[in-house]
């Protein structure tokens, strides 16, 4: 690995952290639980590494590790997004129609 490439991805890392802080500080506290499960889903981005590992493995052991990684990352992605959606669907506005 080249040190210049590392410096470049480190820059991406730092800028993303700042972007994250900006975005998340605007999330109201009533949505903090969905925020956590949504970020669970986003941290499932490890799936990208897992897919490559499982798809390019040359030994049985690599293949085993890669497939296992795909399983766990996929649980995060699918479980995280679905449960977030389930929660957010419950946050409703006050029904305005026909009040007694």
């Amino acid at each position, binding site marked *: 690995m080249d040190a210049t490439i590392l410096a470049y991805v480190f820059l991406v890392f730092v800028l993303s952290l700042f972007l994250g802080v900006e975005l998340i500080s605007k999330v109201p506290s009533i949505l903090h639980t969905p925020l956590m499960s949504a970020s669970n889903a986003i941290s499932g981005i490890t799936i990208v590494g897992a897919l490559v590992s499982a798809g390019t493995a040359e030994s049985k052991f690599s293949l085993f590790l890669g497939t296992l990684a795909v399983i766990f990352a996929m*649980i995060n992605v699918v479980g995280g997004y679905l449960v977030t959606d389930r929660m957010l669907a419950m946050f409703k506005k006050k029904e305005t129609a026909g009040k007694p």
Partner: protein
Amino acid sequence: MNLNILIDIFYILAAILFALGLRMLNSPATARKGNLFSAVGMLLAIVATLLVKGLSFQWIIVGAVIGTALGIFAAQRVAMTAMPEMVALLNGSGGLASLLVASAVYHHHPESGALTALTIFLSVLIGGVTFTGSLVAWGKLSEKLPGKPILYPGQQIGNIALLIALLTCGILFTLNPAGNYPIFLLSILFSLILGVLVVIPIGGADMPVVISLLNSYSGLAACATGFVILNNILIVAGALVGASGIILTQIMCKAMNRSLSHVLFSGFGAVPHPRTEGPHGEVKALSIADAYFILEAARSVVFVPGYGMAVAQAQYAVRELAKLLEANGTEVRYAIHPVAGRMPGHMNVLLAEANVPYEQLVEMDAINRIMETLDVAIVIGANDVVNPAARNDKSSPIYGMPIINVDKAKTVFVMKRSLGAGFAGVQNDLFYYENTRMILGDAKQSVQNLIAEFKAGRST
């Protein structure tokens, strides 16, 4: 067009969608769509990765099918009260995935250079700590492990020794990574042990801080993996999650008036606090019938729920009472303390599940500004977060913690089974205040009795 450029474009789009999705979480009105944006971003990232040349799909499909099935199963089955356990498990699963990817990369290219070796080590370390730490947090939340802090002599020294061992492993591995399996496996083992040891001394009441912190770690683990495979999308997404967890951790600490290091190292609640002799004034009990007359005449009511309300599943009864109050022309709000529940924002989800419209969910600072104007504050299953000692009594262990100032409302109802102390073992002065009325008994039953009074009162 070159395939690699197409893949990069997809990754950029995914990053934009993740950021937009998080941005739309700033309001309940747009949040659900934001989550969908984020999911589309993830789909793009996955599709882009599958375009990489020379992948064999057989085991990818097997893994994806199993993971998807488990994910769907978990997301549909989990009860809203168990959401903290679910998030803890998802944190752990993210950490484990990062550990596995780093291990697979090392196994594939055992002849890595020093920089790659360093990133592999970090990925294993953060992933491993997140994995076992989350499992312990899950055990404590689901009460499979004792919620009390587990402390033993030599704990600090043992942890420091483990950290030094890990540091040594990291240096040895970075200097001599080629085929260095013994050190690599030791690093994994020590990381897994470290995860257990850092969470067991933390008490159940501090779990909101711990899952927020582990949430952050699971993002940073993804970041570290991004450094291993030099992939920007992992780094961007991981950093967004890392930042999110850090902010939530800060908010939780602030709401409990404690520093992060205090939460992590002190074992809060391990030593029972000397019970201060509370003011032995008179407690004024209130009958359901009298409570009804006060509520019937009230123009504004605020409910202040604690986790006890959710455990008793009383939120549905509370919502029904609120509807009757509204039909009677009373303005109803719910004031939520940031640490109410077992994780950040938990109480809001539980109330939303009971069909409480989100406009009525009010944050602590907002309700405190208008508390003097409210006729009745009804405290259900909350204790420490409404204890005025946090403002007045410098000797109190909870002094300085921000609270919901229910004592400033014109009348306070406290629904409580007994006059016991709260989580922190602190006597609550609120019960003896001039404007406080105690409705003793099971909170859910009391609310249901009030509902019955209202229905009877309205029909006559």
